């Protein structure tokens, strides 16, 4: 900016003044006076001195300057002293521009800094003259012009009276462009390949060739388009002419000459004139360097030198700057781009960075000069080449504008932002009927409705009485207007596509309650149209989706809480305060999908999907399921939390699992039992969990969640063990290895492995004993109503399953529900006696018994099931397991108990395998009495009603749709459950509500909405566990 000013000086200022100034300059500054004198050359020496003075900055200039000088003197010749000077004065300036610009394009950044530093010095030291000069300037200028005009008039009249007047006149007749459309008689356009970046040059070369060769060259024109690299067009009648013309032209290669179809000829020439409206306050974006992509605001434009001064939010690493200024070694490679932050002068001073407070001579504003950079109000003022900014189609986002306004006085900024927005409006922005408000001019704040839209003017019907029926208002003075309650759709900007209801109007900013996120979003009224449409908006960019946990560039992490058009809003994993940042796709390193478990304040294990309550911090009292866990930080989703899409980031230590024990240790009294409490889970959890999730064995459809969960369960187990309070108890980790080995069918080795480790700890016995009493406690937890199956599926509260104090334990519920009597009546340690009515289903007793011990080696053994069974050894539901099993620490129990060998168990469905309902061969549904089935027997297909489920898995079925016919025995494979439809009476075949009846009152995807008969509760259950009743 300052520089620019100096240059203008060179251009504008009258001669006499110029000399004065020069003297002053020299006096005021002891600037190379000697050199100047040395260089002095007659009348123009002073000026020369000045230009030298400038040249000192950029040494490169000297030489060329000299040459140019000669040229000027030669050319300007007889003009005499004054003329020579005249020539000279502008010459210096112009020369300076060109060279300057050249230098800039080469070494942008460095040059900048150097220059800035220098110029501020000179500028700041002579502010007074500058101001004075500025005021003096216009006067001589006007005189000048007058003279010019008069002289011009005369000369031009003289000139054009005779010759070319007619020619121009003709030119001016406004021929319809249409009439100029190419015809077959016109020359054609040929496309020729040329060296990239040499398009213009080639065109000029051909022009030169034409001049040299005269009309030999039969081409008519050569066109080089800025936006088309690698090609030029040549206009000629014949291809041969083109060939002739390009012969010997260095930059044209490839003999291929392509004819442009006549219809496309006009397209070639229709270039949009780049309407560069770079003026003060225009929003632009930086194209290169540290600030690439950053929003900037134009402060000053120097059209002559193609430079712009912009205002930016600095990205300055103060520490690095301090190092640099102190001459310490600075890492050459910039590891990262510092985040944008307003410059804090005090901070800089703390780091012993020299901050100079100077007044800018031009604007009279004060700037802080830090290391050659100019700051004001925290903003960085930077002068860059016009080429390094893009001014086209800049649509600052709301957040960006907001940031930009932060430190300065609010209010005025809004209009500034708006004006840019208006400039980028699409055509047809306003439509008839739109409610609008006038934002500028005399009619400001007048509301009305659009009646008619013309090119630039919009006719509005004003709301106010006493005004003409319609008023024509320039569209730039209009802004759309909305009122709270309007349902709108965002049609531009980063939130494009979102819909919602206007809840508040703040001037030209609307606050919309988004339909998707139920969050407030702020948008410009101008970017919005009224619409009843409800859209979900974008929820995914690339691989990343809303609510994903992602690792960011700088090793921080966070959860995506909003997806904008090109960026994500990420709630960072900083528990102290909610920190949201806008991240571009490229700034995300990866998605974090691994599930960890952590411990809450009371050392309960927290896994993903556990419901926790936040005990401290700003979000104290909030509660919800844990969505992500990473590095001891929980992301809790509380749908009542209106910020950040309901996500709360909290330290695991400041949360408590809802329903979890306050403290296992205290309750259990001693560390040993606590030990047990903690130790057990890893082995136990998989079973309830899996079971609950899986539902009936045939439930392959309802397993979308279950599948992944099964895996998670295992991983969870791992982590829990590792992070347990008894870190020494590393046996757990080995446990996991065993699990893995199960997967690879390598049980023989692994099992002992596991055993050794466990027993190595010598903890086995107490653990077992600790478990025994647990079961009774579990019983009261059977609360079918309280635990909708979905929760059961999701909530992996494994430890609690074994924790006698856990008030609720969904996973277990499922078991218990299915087998209400089992806990009480059939102790788990009587494995030989299967609870016969437990499942009212084909009790797989025999099936299990028959499972060969070596079944692990069978292919397809799901590791889940392996571990599940292993863990579940003490479970009462393994009736067929040899009695010694649960108690015996030998590897034996695990083998027979493990249903891994069951061929039909799907990989992740280890849970299913748990279900004793299925024998090894029985794949059939989990039949319960009273339900309607389709019986295929001997080719016939008849409806029937199951009367009884026999122990071997087959069923006694009464044929007929109401069960009134003959009774037959049908194998599970011969029966098929009738899927219920809406309003059918149903019976629940699996899950915690097994055996209950109800009515299907709705279907939502794979879920059925069921009203339970007894309780009249409404439950959402997987459709596959619902069977139609007759």
């Amino acid at each position, binding site marked *: 900016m300052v520089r620019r000013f100096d240059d203008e000086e060179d251009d504008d200022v009258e001669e006499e003044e110029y000399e004065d100034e020069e003297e002053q300059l020299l006096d005021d500054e002891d600037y190379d006076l000697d050199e100047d004198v040395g260089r002095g050359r007659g009348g123009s020496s002073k000026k020369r001195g000045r230009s030298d003075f400038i040249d000192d900055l950029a040494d490169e200039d000297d030489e060329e300057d000299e040459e140019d000088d000669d040229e000027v003197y030669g050319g300007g010749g007889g003009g005499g002293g004054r003329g020579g000077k005249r020539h000279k004065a502008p010459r210096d300036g112009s020369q300076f521009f060109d060279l300057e*610009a050249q230098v800039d394009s080469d070494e942008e950044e460095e040059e900048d800094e150097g220059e800035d530093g220098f110029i501020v010095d000179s500028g700041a030291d002579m502010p007074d003259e500058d101001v004075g000069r500025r005021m003096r300037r216009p006067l001589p200028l006007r005189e000048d012009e007058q003279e010019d005009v008069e002289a*011009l008039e005369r000369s031009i009249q003289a000139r054009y009276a005779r010759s070319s007047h007619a020619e121009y006149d003709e030119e001016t007749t406004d021929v319809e462009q249409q009439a100029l459309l190419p015809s077959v008689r016109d020359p054609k356009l040929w496309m020729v390949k040329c060296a990239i970046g040499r398009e*213009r040059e080639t065109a000029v070369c051909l*022009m030169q060739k034409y*001049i040299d060769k005269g009309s030999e060259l039969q081409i008519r024109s050569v*066109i080089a388009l800025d*936006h088309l690299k690698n090609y030029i067009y040549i206009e000629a009648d014949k291809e041969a002419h083109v060939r002739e013309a390009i012969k010997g032209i260095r930059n044209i290669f490839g003999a291929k000459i392509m004819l442009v179809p006549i219809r496309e000829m006009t397209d070639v*020439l229709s270039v949009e*004139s780049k309407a*560069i409206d770079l003026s003060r306050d225009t929003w632009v974006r930086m194209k290169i360097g540290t600030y690439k992509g950053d929003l900037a605001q134009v402060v000053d434009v120097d059209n002559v030198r193609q430079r712009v001064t912009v205002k930016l939010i600095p990205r300055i690493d103060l520490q690095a700057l301090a190092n640099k200024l102190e001459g310490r070694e600075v890492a050459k490679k910039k590891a990262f781009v510092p985040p944008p932050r307003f410059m804090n002068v005090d901070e800089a001073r703390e780091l012993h960075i020299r901050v100079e407070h100077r007044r800018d001579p031009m604007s009279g504003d004060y700037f802080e000069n830090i290391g050659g950079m100019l700051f004001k109000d925290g903003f960085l003022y930077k002068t860059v080449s016009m080429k390094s900014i893009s001014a086209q189609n800049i649509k600052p986002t709301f957040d960006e504008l907001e940031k930009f306004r932060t430190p300065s006085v609010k209010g005025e900024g809004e209009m500034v932002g708006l004006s840019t927005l208006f400039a980028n409006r699409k055509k047809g922005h306003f439509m008839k009927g739109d409610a609008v408000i006038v934002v500028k001019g005399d009619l400001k704040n007048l509301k009305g409705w659009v009646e008619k839209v013309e090119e630039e003017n919009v006719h509005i019907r004003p709301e106010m009485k006493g005004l003409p029926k319609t008023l024509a208002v320039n569209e730039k003075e209009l802004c759309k207007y909305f009122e709270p309650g309007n349902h709108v759709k965002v049609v531009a900007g980063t939130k494009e596509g979102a819909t919602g209801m206007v809840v508040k109007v703040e001037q030209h900013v609307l606050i919309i309650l988004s339909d998707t996120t139920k969050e407030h979003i702020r948008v410009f009224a101008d970017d919005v149209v009224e619409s009843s449409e409800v859209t979900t908006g974008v929820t995914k960019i690339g691989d990343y989706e809303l609510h994903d946990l992602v690792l960011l560039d700088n090793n921080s992490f966070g959860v995506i809480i909003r997806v904008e058009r090109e960026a994500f809003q990420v709630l960072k994993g900083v528990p102290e305060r909610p920190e949201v940042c806008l991240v571009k796709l490229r700034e995300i390193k990866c998605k974090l999908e691994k599930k960890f478990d952590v411990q809450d304040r009371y050392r309960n294990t927290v896994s993903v999907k556990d419901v926790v309550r936040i005990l401290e911090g700003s979000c104290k009292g909030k509660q919800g399921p844990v969505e992500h866990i990473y590095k001891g930080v929980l992301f809790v989703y509380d749908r009542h939390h209106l910020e950040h899409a309901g996500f709360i980031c909290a330290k695991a230590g400041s949360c408590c699992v809802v329903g979890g024990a306050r403290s296992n240790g205290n309750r259990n009294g001693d560390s040993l039992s606590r030990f047990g409490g903690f130790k057990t889970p890893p082995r136990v959890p998989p079973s309830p969990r899996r079971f609950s999730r899986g539902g009936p064995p045939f439930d392959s459809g309802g397993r979308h969640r279950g599948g992944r969960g099964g895996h998670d369960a295992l991983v969870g187990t791992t982590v829990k063990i590792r992070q347990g309070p008894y870190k020494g108890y590393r046996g757990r980790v080995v446990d996991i290895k065993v699990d893995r080995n199960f997967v690879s069918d390598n049980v023989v080795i692994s099992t002992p492995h596991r055993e050794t480790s466990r027993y190595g700890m010598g903890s086995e016995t107490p653990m077992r004993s600790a478990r025994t009493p647990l079961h009774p406690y579990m019983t009261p937890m059977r609360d079918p109503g309280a635990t909708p199956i979905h929760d059961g599926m999701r909530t992996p509260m494994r430890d609690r399953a074994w924790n006698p104090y856990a008030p609720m334990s969904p996973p277990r519920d499922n078991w218990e529900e299915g087998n209400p009597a089992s806990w009480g009546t059939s102790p788990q340690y009587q494995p030989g006696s299967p609870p016969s009515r437990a499942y009212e289903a084909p009790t797989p007793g025999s099936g299990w018994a028959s499972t060969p011990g070596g079944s692990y080696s069978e292919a397809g053994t799901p590791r889940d099931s392996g571990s599940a069974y292993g863990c579940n050894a003490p479970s009462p539901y393994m009736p067929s397991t040899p009695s010694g099993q649960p108690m015996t620490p030998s590897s034996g129990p695990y083998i027979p108990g493990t249903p891994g060998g069951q061929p039909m168990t799907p990989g992740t469905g280890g849970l299913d395998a748990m279900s004793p309902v299925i024998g090894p061969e029985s794949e059939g549904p989990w039949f319960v009495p009273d339900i309607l089935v389709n019986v295929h027997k001997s080719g016939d297909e008849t409806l029937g009603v199951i009367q009884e489920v026999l122990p071997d898995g087959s069923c006694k079925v009464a044929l007929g749709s109401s069960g009134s016919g003959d009774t037959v025995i049908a194998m599970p494979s011969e029966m098929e459950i009738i899927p219920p439809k809406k309003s059918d009476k149903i019976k629940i075949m699996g899950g915690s509500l097994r055996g209950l009846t109800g009515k299907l009152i709705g279907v939502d995807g794979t879920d059925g909405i069921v009203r339970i008969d007894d309780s009249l509760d409404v439950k959402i259950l997987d459709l596959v566990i619902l069977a139609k009743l007759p």
Partner: protein
Amino acid sequence: MGTAPAQIPTSFGHELRACLRCRLVKTYDQFRESGCDNCPFFKMDGDNERVVDCTTPNFNGMISVMDPARSWAARWLRVGRFVPGCYTLAVSEALPEDLQALCEEVHVQYVPPKRV
């Protein structure tokens, strides 16, 4: 042909400027030294300020017109009546108003660039 061609730009970089009226492209120095070949009434020669006012570095595309009278492209671009030379397809600025007035005085039409 008859008409002598205009000066040919001596370089191809950013020092190129285009006359805001006729869209002739030359370097700044060329304009300053010998003015615009089509618009002598601007009297740019030697007048640094005038060159700045009458020309612009912001233009889009370039066309070397060898034979304006017989070139369709030149006619389409409305440079068919100008001297042969290098022109630009479009400039992005309008001539300052005082200079527009000057055009009027000398009975030369000035067509401001169409904004898109």
